[in-house]
């Protein structure tokens, strides 16, 4: 099989998720087999079209180039993950949603909302009954008990 395609060997300190992504980008034209051999990642690219003649040097170069790009992207992504999450969360919870909240509910939606509220209230009652850890009690309730003791 290796004779039909190329095998790229990479050190084990490369990130597996980066290798997997780069390999994935070749799956349109190649079958990709990833393995670990002699403590190295072995990536075998085999053309789906067996008759095609591939330039093995060019293909390996292309693989390594994409790997380099992806490593850089990963580094920038990592450095910005927290910020990105924060900004997207802020966008989702945006304060400009008031207009939508003021929308009048249809009778059906009101009914649905009421039934959900009832359901939650019932669940809470049930939960309170089973609350062995006292987690649902308020701070005052818990501490008043302690003081009485």
């Amino acid at each position: 099989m290796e004779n039909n395609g190329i095998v790229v060997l990479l050190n084990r300190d490369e990130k597996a998720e980066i290798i997997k992504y780069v390999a994935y980008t070749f799956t349109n034209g190649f079958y990709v087999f990833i393995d670990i051999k002699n403590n190295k990642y072995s990536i075998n690219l085999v053309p789906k079209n067996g008759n095609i003649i591939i330039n093995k040097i060019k293909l390996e170069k292309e693989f390594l180039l994409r790997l380099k790009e992806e490593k850089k992207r990963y580094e920038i992504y990592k450095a910005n993950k927290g910020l990105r999450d924060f900004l997207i969360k802020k966008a989702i919870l945006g304060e400009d949603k008031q207009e939508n909240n003021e929308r009048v509910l249809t009778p059906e939606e009101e009914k649905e909302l009421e039934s959900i509220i009832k359901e939650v209230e019932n669940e809470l009652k049930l939960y309170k009954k089973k609350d062995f850890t006292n987690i649902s009690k308020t701070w005052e309730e818990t501490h008043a008990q302690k003081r009485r003791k």
Partner: protein
Amino acid sequence: MLKKEENRVFINWRKLEGDYLITNDFGFFEYLSPSDFNKYQENNISEKLKEKLKPKAFIRTCLDFDALSKRYNNYYFNRSNPLLHILVLNSTCNENCIYCQSRASYENNIGISKMKWETAKKSIDFSFDKVVFPNQQFTIEFQGGEPLLNWEVLKKAITYIRGKENNNNKKVKISLVTNMSLMDNDKADFLLRNKVSICTSLDGPKKLHDKNRPYINNSSYEEVKKWLSFFNKKYNSQDNEQLDYPIYKPSALLTVSRYSLNYPQEIVDEYLEQGLDNIFVRPLSIIGYSAKNWNEIGYTAEDFVKFYEKVLKYILYLQINKKKYIREKFASILLKKILKFESPNYVDLCSPCGAGTMQMVYDIDGKIYTCDEARMLEPNEKKKFQIGNVFASNSLSDIIEQDSVKACAMGSNLENRFVCFRCVYKPYCGICPVLNYSLTKNIDNSMNNFYCEIKKGIFDILFKLLRNKTYYEVFKEWTDERN
């Protein structure tokens, strides 16, 4: 040693004409020379480069969180319930288009072919009462096959919508997609009086149009030409006639078959000749007859992109040098996203797409589908995208919580997608999971396929042209509200 201050934000990039195009999550873009790009990547950004990139939110230490989160919110989360409702009035057609996606030729006339009035009424009631909230403006579009083959139901439906609109404090835009072959003065008059917007198909000059769209009786081109002229005249003279209703400008859609590829200029000239100010250059969707006849009428993504470029450059030439104005509609939609970061609610280019959440399609038998593409699939495939039935008592939440709606949303959310997530065009792009499904039998597979290559090709053309000041000005004009 002090840790170097992080100045980079998360970006995607693509090499374009020797430089690098970069984009960020907030839809800003910039072109960088290879040396500046390297500096950016290495977090070794000079003061000069910092100044250039700061206003476009590429410098982490200079971000306006409030403005950016608002920008992101407006673009991605400013969505409503489904506001496009498509009624399929008829599954057959009197034309025999070589690429028909819905297999609606006159030969395909087996079983139920027309929507009954009861189904149409239920569909309209459903959209009014269960889907659209008070004071919301929404669109009901009539499609086929050829909807005029079911004129009695269409007429009743339009009258019913206008009456219901008055009683329910809702505004409805009614749109009719027709090949014009069965249009007559009475029908045209009724449609105009009821403020129906007319959209037809025009594939180019007579020879090309008739080759793509053979008509059972005679030339389909002649009918289109005649009625486009009629509706255009009515549109242009409405101010003099002091009507108490507005008349919409008619529009047309172009579907590009292999036969069209040699005639980019002739097609644009034909559109101008027919008084149209927009041309929507659409590739074939590999679905229905188009898939069946692909060897005869299909082409590669590269062929289509070359054709598209010729059309676009000819349009720009006409506008800049000849003062003749016509816009390419797909470019206008993309440019609105690129230059204004506004989402024009074109459901196929949203992330996630609008299947079942922004549009719903009511088939002739009352079954509700996620989108237009879904109802065009083979019967055993399209049932996977059925999300309700107007005769069942589905609520809006019943529909939106259907697995197929969720699957479409997941499958078209670019944040979720390996390749799309890393694409420089991610902020402006969108994918159709149903078309991907019909192509690969996998809702998740969009990587480098026909549709992806076409979109990437068109983005490349636009971003190359945007570097030219004259073209930039023209494109800016295209993003105004006329679209």
